[in-house]
């Protein structure tokens, strides 16, 4: 476990937020560092922050959880947070507490604790949850943490002075051997459990009750007597049971005998009622020889009636078909006449349309002949429009160039320019060239004059500038003139005369000269500008010469092409500005020609269509006349008051009606033949039957028919007859059997009436008595069986108990060896081994601290320690006899040994030692510091809190806690002081 950082806020004198990172420089590479500062500055508060964040406790407040007084005065909140690393990863533990509203005067609120993993995911957010989680992560509870990581002031000695149990607990936690406590406790509990089990079973055996021998004998005798009594009763009941069955049989036989008599009377009555029906059945049986003839007669009558009915229907259908035929014929004739009339009208209209179309065609053709020349126009219209456009563009371009050129020419030579024509068009190339050259020549002459004027202006400027310079020079020699002496040479010119020695004229003329120079300068600039402008204009005139000639050439070329195209149309080229009018006129002429061509073509097409319609109507009329002729041949019906319909439908209806009438006529004839055949058959059958009846017992055919029943009625009567016969036979048999049974039972002296009742009552008493006897016998048998089982069970249990008691002796010995209610006995034994290992680890450190002492275990006590003084011939004495300095060295060695030992399960890489160094002399202190520094090799970081000056000087890297005004402190981390 390694502490990586501590962050705290408003704890004791450390007001505000403070962060100390042990995993960053300078602390990261310093194996040993000091935490220094004056008393009360807050050095120990750093350690308080660590225990608060991890366990919610502060060492100096004892075991109080979440102490109230750690918050800095006049603050509303405080917190502590530790980042630490264990083998499973890096985690962050936080503790925080605040007052209501986080105001200094607010009521103190419950603290909060959190544990987060490296990604910031919370692992615990409740206090109990955090308590368990931190112990799981660190492998140390609060007390163990204090003794192995945060060695608070005086705790070294406290470990040395801890009692055996406390020391055993610490060792067990550090070595991860809590199993010994659990085994010791389990040995105690298991032995107790087994002893309790044995005692319970022994008590259970005592609870098993067995019968006395005398009681068992009495029970056996009673059981035997009961069995004899039961045998006697059973025989009597068995005999009585047979008699009871016979009595029941006799009663039943008597009841059957009475029932048979009753059935016989009822049967006689039924036969009397059925007598007429049976007579009816007898007559029916006499008609059976005539059954087939009667059936044939019925069939013939039915067939004749059916054929007659069908004939009537067929005749009616035929009449209706004839009527439909007549109507369809009339409608067809009317429709044909209407269609013929329409065909004639259509023919007339088509002829008229043909004539009109012919007239339209003739008019159009006449116009086309008169304007045949425009046919060419329609073919070249596109070229003409293009040529007119090109001519128009060329003219405009030439005009635009000429206008621009003449504008420049007016600037260059206004007099000559007034004679220029409005346009170059119409002039020959030579004329154009001469005209342009004259203008350029005039401009060149003017350019020469301007050049000379400019040169003169420059000369005038130079003269005036020179005069001005000299005048200024004279004026600048005033102070030299003042020094001239009569008769002495001038130091500048050597003249001994000094005409101006008394002073220069008052007005030297410099101002007037300067004005003249300015005017000359302006004049020169103006001359230069005019010359430059004229030179530029001349260049433009010369440059425009070629453009102008080219433009006029293009005009001539386009006009020649246009003229060639217009020649067949007897039209001349348009004057400038009339190009659009000509184009419009030509487009209209071409449009008119095309329109008349279309009219001629449309007229011819209409005429063709009209002639086709005429031919079609003629053919249609011929077809209709043909149909009309056929109908008149087929039917003589005269069309009545009917309306025409669609000719096709009328024709279809007509043919359907003809077919229907023919079909119905055929069917009517067939039905008439069928009716005549059926009537003949009926007559034949009837005559034969009448002859047969005359030879029978029946007076007439109707009498015979009346006696002849339907099969359903005949079957019903036969069923009735059979039923009566069967019931009669059954009743006679039943009556006979009942009488026989009564006779037989009476012959056996079976009891009847009151004698029988008395016998039955006696039997019931016998049965009741036997039931009581059996119940008593069952109780006796159960009591004896239970006693047998109890005797057997007790015997077996006693054997098992004795065996288990032997086994329990082993567990009792085990309990005596290692068992205790809290597991302390076996723990102490196991941890005595741990203590031996601890003293070895401690002595490795103690050797570096002192060559005089060794720690060893007092073999008279399980976990007691004593000190061996090598300077006193290895004399051993109690730890309590050590001086303060000696005690510190021994304690430090043990503490470091504890850390080593804890490393078996919990690696401890951070140690904080709070004070305790004040008891060391300088040499011992030096040794202690060297020892602590050497721990860096094991990757341990040791923080030492001390006032000792030598310690502060010897340990370079320090966390300095400085007091500030107002009772608060600041933290500084420095690499060296």
């Amino acid at each position, binding site marked *: 476990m390694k502490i990586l950082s501590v962050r705290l806020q408003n704890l004791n004198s450390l007001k505000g937020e403070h962060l100390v990172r042990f995993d960053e420089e300078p602390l990261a590479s310093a194996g040993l560092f000091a935490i220094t500062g004056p008393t009360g500055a807050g050095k120990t508060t750093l350690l308080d922050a660590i225990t608060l964040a991890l366990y919610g406790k502060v060492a100096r407040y004892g075991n109080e959880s979440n102490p109230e007084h750690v918050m800095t005065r006049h603050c509303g909140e405080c917190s502590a947070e530790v980042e630490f690393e264990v083998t499973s990863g890096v985690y962050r533990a936080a503790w925080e507490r605040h007052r209501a509203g986080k105001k200094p005067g607010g009521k103190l609120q419950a603290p909060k604790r959190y544990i987060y993993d490296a990604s910031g995911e919370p692992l615990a957010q409740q206090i109990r949850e955090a308590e368990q989680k931190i112990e799981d992560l660190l492998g140390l509870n609060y007390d163990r943490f204090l003794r192995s990581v945060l060695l608070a002031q005086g705790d070294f000695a406290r470990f040395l002075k801890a009692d055996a149990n406390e020391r055993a607990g610490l060792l067990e936690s550090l*070595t991860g*051997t809590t*199993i*010994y406590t*659990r*085994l010791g406790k*389990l*040995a105690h509990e*298991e032995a107790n*459990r087994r002893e309790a089990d044995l005692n319970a079973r022994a008590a259970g055996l005592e609870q098993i009750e067995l019968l006395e021998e005398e009681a068992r004998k009495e029970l056996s005798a009673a059981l035997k007597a009961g069995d004899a009594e039961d045998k006697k009763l059973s025989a009597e009941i068995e005999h009585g049971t047979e008699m009871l069955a016979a009595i029941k049989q006799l009663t039943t036989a008597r009841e059957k005998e009475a029932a048979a008599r009753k059935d016989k009377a009822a049967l006689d009555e039924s036969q009397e009622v059925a007598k007429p029906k049976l007579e009816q059945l007898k007559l029916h049986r006499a008609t059976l020889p005539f059954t087939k003839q009667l059936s044939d007669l019925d069939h013939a009558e039915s067939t004749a009636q059916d054929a007659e009915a069908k004939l009537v229907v067929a005749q009616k259908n035929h009449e209706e078909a004839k009527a439909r035929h007549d109507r369809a014929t009339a409608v067809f004739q009317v429709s044909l006449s209407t269609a013929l009339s329409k065909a004639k009208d259509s023919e007339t209209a088509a002829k008229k349309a043909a004539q009109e179309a012919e007239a339209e065609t003739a008019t159009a053709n006449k116009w086309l002949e008169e304007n045949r020349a425009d046919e060419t126009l329609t073919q070249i219209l596109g070229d003409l429009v293009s040529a007119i456009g090109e001519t128009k563009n060329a003219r405009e371009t030439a005009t635009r160039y000429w206008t621009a050129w003449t504008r420049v020419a007016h600037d260059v030579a206004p007099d000559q320019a007034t004679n220029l024509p409005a346009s170059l068009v119409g002039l020959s190339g030579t004329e154009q060239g001469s005209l342009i050259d004259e203008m350029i020549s005039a401009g060149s002459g003017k350019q020469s004059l301007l050049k000379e004027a400019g040169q003169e202006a420059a000369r005038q400027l130079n003269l005036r500038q020179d005069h001005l310079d000299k005048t200024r020079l004279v004026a600048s020699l005033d102070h030299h003139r003042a020094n001239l002496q009569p008769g002495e040479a001038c130091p500048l010119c050597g003249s001994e005369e000094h005409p101006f020695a008394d002073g220069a004229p008052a007005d030297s003329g410099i101002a007037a000269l300067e004005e003249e120079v300015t005017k000359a300068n302006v004049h020169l600039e103006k001359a230069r500008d005019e010359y430059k402008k004229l030179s530029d204009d001349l260049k433009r005139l010369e440059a425009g010469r070629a453009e102008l000639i080219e433009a006029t050439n293009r005009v001539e070329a386009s006009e020649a092409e246009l003229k060639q195209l217009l020649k067949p149309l007897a039209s001349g080229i348009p004057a400038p500005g009339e190009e659009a009018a000509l184009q419009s006129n030509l487009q209209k002429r071409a449009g008119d020609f095309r329109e008349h061509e279309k009219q001629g073509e449309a007229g011819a097409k209409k005429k063709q269509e009209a002639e086709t319609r005429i031919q079609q109507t003629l053919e249609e009329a011929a077809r209709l006349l043909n149909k009309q002729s056929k109908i008149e041949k087929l039917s003589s019906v005269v069309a009545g008051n009917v309306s025409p319909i669609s000719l096709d439908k009328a024709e279809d209806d007509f043919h359907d009606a003809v077919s229907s009438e023919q079909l119905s006529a055929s069917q009517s004839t067939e039905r008439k033949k069928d009716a005549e055949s059926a009537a003949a058959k009926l007559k034949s059958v009837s005559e034969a039957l009448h002859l047969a009846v005359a030879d029978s017992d029946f007076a007439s055919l109707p009498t015979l028919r009346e006696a002849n029943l339907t099969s359903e009625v005949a079957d019903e009567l036969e069923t009735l007859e059979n039923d009566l016969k069967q019931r009669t036979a059954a009743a006679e048999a039943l009556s006979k059997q009942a009488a026989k049974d009564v006779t037989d039972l009476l012959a056996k002296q079976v009891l009847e009436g009151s004698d029988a009742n008395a016998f039955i009552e006696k039997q019931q008493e016998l049965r009741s008595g036997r039931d009581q006897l059996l119940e008593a016998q069952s109780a006796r048998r159960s009591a004896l069986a239970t006693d047998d089982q109890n005797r057997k069970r007790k015997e077996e249990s006693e054997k098992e108990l004795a065996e288990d008691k032997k086994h329990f002796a*082993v*567990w009792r*010995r*085990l309990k005596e*060896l*290692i068992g205790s209610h809290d597991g302390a006995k076996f723990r102490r*034994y*196991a941890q*005595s*081994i*741990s203590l*031996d*290992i601890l*003293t*070895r680890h401690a002595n490795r450190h103690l050797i570096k601290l002192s060559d005089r002492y060794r720690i*060893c*275990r007092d*073999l008279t006590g399980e976990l007691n320690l004593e000190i061996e003084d090598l300077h006193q011939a290895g004399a051993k004495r109690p730890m309590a006899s050590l001086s303060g300095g000696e005690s510190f060295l021994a304690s430090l060695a043990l503490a470091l040994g504890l850390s080593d030992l804890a490393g*078996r399960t919990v690696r401890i890489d951070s140690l904080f030692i709070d004070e305790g160094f004040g008891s060391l002399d300088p040499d011992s202190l030096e040794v202690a510091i060297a020892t602590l520094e050497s721990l860096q090799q094991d990757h341990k970081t040791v923080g030492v809190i001390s006032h000792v000056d030598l310690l502060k000087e010897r340990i370079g890297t320090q966390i300095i806690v400085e007091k500030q005004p107002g009772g608060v402190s600041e933290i500084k981390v420095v690499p060296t002081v």
Partner: protein
Amino acid sequence: MSVEESTDDEAIESLLDQPARVFEHLLDQQEQFTEEETAELKLAFSRLVEMEAQPELIDAP
């Protein structure tokens, strides 16, 4: 018992990881038991270790 006399530190430290060996160590110091009793005690202790590892065995006979 004193482990100081031992020369094998690692073996001694690993002793704590084996409760049966620690118990045998304890038995070695007990002179009052016969061999049969010692064997019975070892058997009972191994049963105890099983029960500690499997609490469901605790109520078994």
